[in-house]
């Protein structure tokens, strides 16, 4: 099994004829994702180069293909509208890659799209290795297996997953939750899904400075995942306060969002925090080792 995405998930691409949308559609198809078509207003009735049907609206695309999943490549000003259109058309899982959507648009969107799982925005997407890719990750570093991976970053995820794969730890599902202040799916949402996924035997949480998502994750692990091996990493531990580092969410203000608070929270939940990404496979191996009788 996997979370959010499996080999039968039927996908449409919002913004399929744009530069990014077209490029990543090809990569997703090559990986084996069930891409059924896409949406570009005004190009309905045409086909993409690879022969996929293009629709004018998400409603048409869902009715025409039976898709349940959508991946969104639209400019920031159109992000909220695209998510609302997906929700209106009955999409169940929407991955929003777009970076730069105003936080207040997302406040409105998350409050008004019940029943739709939004991943992102400003995220690399989701991959269930060996099954399906709904995102922009370089798929060759991933390998099918039993480790659940959640991360706020894109490239840092690749760095960590590459290490896991090289050490022989394949992954059940990897979710890049996104670096914005307001995101649809948090670490805790992912952990809740992993807790119910029999194929996920251990979990890696790659957080970063800013916000309190890591602290919330630690509290959830302590309460509900005490038996599951979990290893954490926190990016930006050497950053000074008040500096915004790339991700809109990665800013330490006052005493909230500090690495100290996050390390402490994981410590209290019995979760080791790796100082370097390269230490993660070792910490995982130690926690997965069966206790001798």
């Amino acid at each position, binding site marked *: 099994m996997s979370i959010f995405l499996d080999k039968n998930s039927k996908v449409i691409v919002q913004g399929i004829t744009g530069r990014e949308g077209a490029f990543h559609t090809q990569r997703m198809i090559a990986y084996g994702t069930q891409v059924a078509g896409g949406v570009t207003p005004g190009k309905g009735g045409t086909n993409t180069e690879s022969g996929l049907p293009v629709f004018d609206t998400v409603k048409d695309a869902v009715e025409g293909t039976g898709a349940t999943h959508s991946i969104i490549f639209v400019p920031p*000003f159109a992000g909220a509208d695209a998510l609302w259109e997906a929700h209106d058309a009955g999409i169940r899982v929407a991955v929003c890659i777009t970076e730069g959507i105003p936080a207040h648009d997302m406040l409105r969107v998350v409050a008004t799209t019940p029943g739709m799982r939004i991943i992102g925005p400003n995220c690399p997407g989701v991959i269930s290795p060996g099954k399906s890719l709904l995102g922009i990750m370089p798929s060759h570093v991933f390998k099918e297996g039993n480790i659940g991976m959640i991360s706020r970053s894109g490239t840092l995820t*690749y760095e960590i997953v590459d290490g896991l794969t090289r050490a022989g730890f394949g992954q059940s599902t990897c979710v890049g939750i996104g670096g914005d202040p307001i995101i649809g799916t948090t670490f805790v949402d992912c952990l809740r899904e992993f807790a119910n996924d029999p194929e996920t035997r251990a979990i890696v949480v790659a957080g970063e400075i800013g916000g309190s998502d890591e602290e919330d994750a630690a509290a959830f692990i302590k309460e509900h995942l005490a038996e599951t091996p979990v290893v954490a990493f926190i990016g930006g531990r050497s950053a000074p306060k008040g500096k915004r580092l*790339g991700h809109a969410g990665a800013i330490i203000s006052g005493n909230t969002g500090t690495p100290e608070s996050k390390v402490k929270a994981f410590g209290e939940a019995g979760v080791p925090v790796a100082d370097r990404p390269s230490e993660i496979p070792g910490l995982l191996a130690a926690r997965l080792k069966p206790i001798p009788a």
Partner: protein
Amino acid sequence: MKLMEYQGKDLFRRVGIPTPNGVFSTTAADVRDYVAAHPGSWVLKSQVMMGGRGKAGGIKFADDAQQSETLARELIGKVLKSIQNPDGEEVKSLLVEEKVDIASEAYVSIAIDRARKRPIVMVTRFGGMDVEEVAEKNPDDIKKYWIDPATGYSPFIGRRLAFSAGLPEGYRKAFPAILGALYTLFMDFGANLVEINPLVLTKDGRVIASDAKVELDDNGLYKHPDLARWNKQSPADEDQAAAVAIGLGMSNYARFADEPGEPPKTVGTIANGAGLGMGTMDAVKNAGGGAANFLDIGGGAQADLVKKSYALVTADPRVKAMFINIFGGITRGDQVAKGIVEALKGPSPGADQPVRQVPLVVRLTGTNAEEGRAILAEAGFVPVETMDEGAARAVELANANGKK
């Protein structure tokens, strides 16, 4: 974008939040003329971004035109310094406001609660002081409410908060409307924070915003092109301006000051992606060095941007070695390698300054990494395999170069 007080109050008036009477001014002559035309007691408030301007001597009181001109002359051009801002900030403009007779001071703010994904309203009857101090000493006196963006604001929220926070009776009629207007501002202008401290109840029974703190979400600024001019007027963050100038996002470049007790910040860093950028800084620290900067070249970076980024980072004279850490996803390794080779060839035709060269360590993996490594090898570089190895090597080179 952080706004100055006069800009915040401009937005307050647009949504209907009462502010004191007054005028914004950049010259002492204008201040004199205004006060001469409006006799009374006036407050001259220096317009700066930094906190603690009152203690730094940035607020003065004048009772006539002559005095107002003298004080305005004194303030405009003065460099105010505070504990939070030891370097100081020059006063370029003043807000001249009526001096009000204060009966009571309250505090109200709206900010984004990331965890609950809702705007959070905070109210306390202890206004006019540092709210962090109130939070520490009397946390129960700060009343909170999380507004559901699906339904929006309704006056009961303001009434409930006014009662529970124990605001004096004089506030009760005006407060729900003021909070509603503040919520409108928060959502419509896309504010990360709106704060009125103090919200004054005057002896003649008016409720007015005596100060204004507004921080807008940069991602939402495109909706308000008329506010862009403020962005240009604010004291620009040098790093942000430099990033934008070479085509990076505003938050993609930041320099870090040296800190006592920490290794000197001598290693320049460039990575693709914010997470890896932060990881790279951390790796340098773990290797016993100090990262002079954070630079995220973003996804899909082309050779030219890599070259400009290299020049930007090495323009900081503290940088004694460079660590470029690329995990190719959308970013292709060969593009990055071309940029590096180009950068090290010296200035491009037409560039006015040569690019400063420092010892370089490149870690390149992921998409098209082999092609990239081949390009680097051809140009005489040996890329390293891992991030830890690269960081250690860069710290070593920076230390050796620094001793020269």
